[in-house]
């Protein structure tokens, strides 16, 4: 919607005004994330820009908080715990979710609406309610304060994302391909491995990434269900914000921003690949 050359002054003002307004909104979206990155290199233990930082004096910057992060057993344990919980929950969610998506996208699936509703429900129910319910139930069966408890809870939260992404890939899936494989003598398992799996793989991987980030970023369930042994990165940030405020959490935050950039790029590349494989025009 480029501005036509014959546009009047009013139209011109409106056009540029609108662009400036949009620019401000983009600024609102990005500024908070960008503002914390330089602060994580602050020499001072404050959350504010010092005079040295503003004049770009090297003395105002340091890797102090990154060192504090690397040398802190609490943070290193948190990373380890986040990875243990995230990877295990993702594996469970991806395997079960992919199987279920394959079943759900079959024409013959009975009670599809009801079952879909039940399976998606962990995504809809407010986290505080899930956390409360799981806290009561998991304590009564002795799973509260254990890794299996947190992993099962996170796996339940992650499955809706796997189902949604994999069913979305299966929408464009040409079922005559598996029939062709079968007619050429492939067993259902071979047909799945050689034909179906490579085609739905982008959906499976992006679903797995969604499930992983859900677990990796999840805090409410962890607050209620996890013990000291299962403190994850968000849990450590939570106490960092509430109790001992130190720029170490800004260093962690910066690392997490880099992590989400990597994740965003992966998802975008997967999406393009999926569209190419399914013969859709690249956007």
């Amino acid at each position, binding site marked *: 919607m480029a501005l036509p050359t014959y546009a009047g002054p009013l139209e011109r003002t409106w056009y540029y005004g609108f*662009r400036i307004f949009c620019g401000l909104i983009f600024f609102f979206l990005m500024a908070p994330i960008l503002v914390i990155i330089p602060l994580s290199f602050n020499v001072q233990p404050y959350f504010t820009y010092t005079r040295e930082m503003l004049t770009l004096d090297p003395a105002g910057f340091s890797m102090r908080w990154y060192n504090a992060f690397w040398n802190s057993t609490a943070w290193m344990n948190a990373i380890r715990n986040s990875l243990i919980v995230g990877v295990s929950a993702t594996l469970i969610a991806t395997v079960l979710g992919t199987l279920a998506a394959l079943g759900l996208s079959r024409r013959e699936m009975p009670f599809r609406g009801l079952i879909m509703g039940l399976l*998606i*429900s962990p995504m809809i129910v*407010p986290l505080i309610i899930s956390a409360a319910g799981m806290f*009561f139930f998991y304590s009564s069966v002795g799973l509260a304060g254990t890794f299996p408890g947190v992993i099962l809870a996170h796996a339940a939260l992650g499955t809706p994302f796997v189902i949604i992404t994999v069913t979305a890939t299966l929408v464009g899936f040409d079922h005559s391909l598996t029939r062709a494989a079968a007619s050429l003598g492939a067993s259902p398992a071979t047909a799945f491995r050689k034909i179906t799996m490579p085609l739905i793989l982008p959906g499976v991987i992006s679903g797995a990434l969604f499930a992983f980030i859900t677990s990796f970023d999840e805090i409410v369930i962890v607050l209620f269900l996890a013990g000291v042994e299962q403190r994850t990165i968000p849990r450590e940030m939570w106490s960092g914000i509430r109790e001992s405020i130190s720029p170490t959490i800004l260093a962690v935050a910066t690392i997490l921003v880099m992590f989400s950039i990597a994740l965003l790029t992966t998802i975008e590349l997967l999406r393009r690949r999926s569209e190419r494989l399914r013969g859709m025009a690249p956007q």
Partner: protein
Amino acid sequence: MVTADGVPLKIALARAERRRRLTAFLLVAPLLAFIVITFIVPIGQMMWRSVDNPIVVATLPQTIEALGEWDGQDLPSENVYAALVSDLVAAQANRTVGQLAIRMNYEFSGARSLFAGLARRGDDMQAPFREAVIEENDRWGDPAVWQILQREGRPYTAAYYVSAVDLRYNDQGEIERQAPNQRIYVALFLRTLALSVAITCTTLLLGYPIAFLLASLPMRTSNLLMIFVLLPFWTSLLVRTTAWIVLLQQQGVINDILVWLGLISNNGRVLMIHNAFGTIVAMTHILLPFMVLPLYSVMKGISPSYMRAARSLGANNWTAFWKVYMPLTVPGIGAGAILVFIISIGYYITPALVGGQSGQMISNLIAFHMQNSLNWGLAAALGTILLVGVLILYWTYSRIVGIDKVKLG
């Protein structure tokens, strides 16, 4: 007609069809079992807890049975008092008096010491028990206490819901409104609704223009600008909340800039965090992508020729937008607004960190009753009310958008 092995075609077909249905179901079954056990059952159990009332009847079985014959007017008979003493002595022996006292304290203040005191002294008491018990604490001579005991001696209770909506039982056992200084929950539900509406409005106000811009720019540019929406979406929630604390706090970046610009004095730094304002700003930022993405996908599907047709028929820019483009985006507005509203109404983390007093929402109180006051029945009742609200909204959402058409990223 028969198949090659002699089975009638109709039966063979039905059998094949049944086998296919079974295969489909077996693929879904593991996850269904998993979700039911790890998620549905816990939620159901929590809802159950909001009406479940086992403690009183389990700790005072004889008393509750004897109270069954009481007419509720005068003081109960001697054998009710005798049963109470005997129950409390037994409860003292197996250490269940504590939870009974806590449970009854939800119903009236002073119940804790009333029950615990009698349980301690019960061993030395002699008949007639009525006089002895009333002498120990004269509140046992108050029929209101016995009415509460009779009411809460049932295995199910509505008491948690009664307190969750700021009602209470008066001395006659009728339901009335809480004293004005005791009313918390209705006001908090209303504030949660008000904050959610405010957040929905600000996300719509900010989300609509950029969704419009993204949908109308050429693909290359809009893909680039989309990163500005998607990066916050993918960034950890706690990182974004931390960022807003850094920006908004009194010694924070925005206040520093305002002081440096000379707009405010160093002593007059603005309070922007730990209040409703902080909650709204931070949550608008966090939920904006949930508004932009559905709006964008609807706007992407609107052909630009509609606007051109409107212009060629003599509409000015504004009329063309308002009469033609805007109505076409209503499904997107509805989807985005309900999505943002559903998410914000149950939000916990951000209000807990930046909300202070005035920015607290109902989930924060549920967490408080779960972790601090340990009134789990009340937490469950508040949670159930919230859950029912969200499910109704979600049902509306799925009527508008469709349950499996939720777009991600």
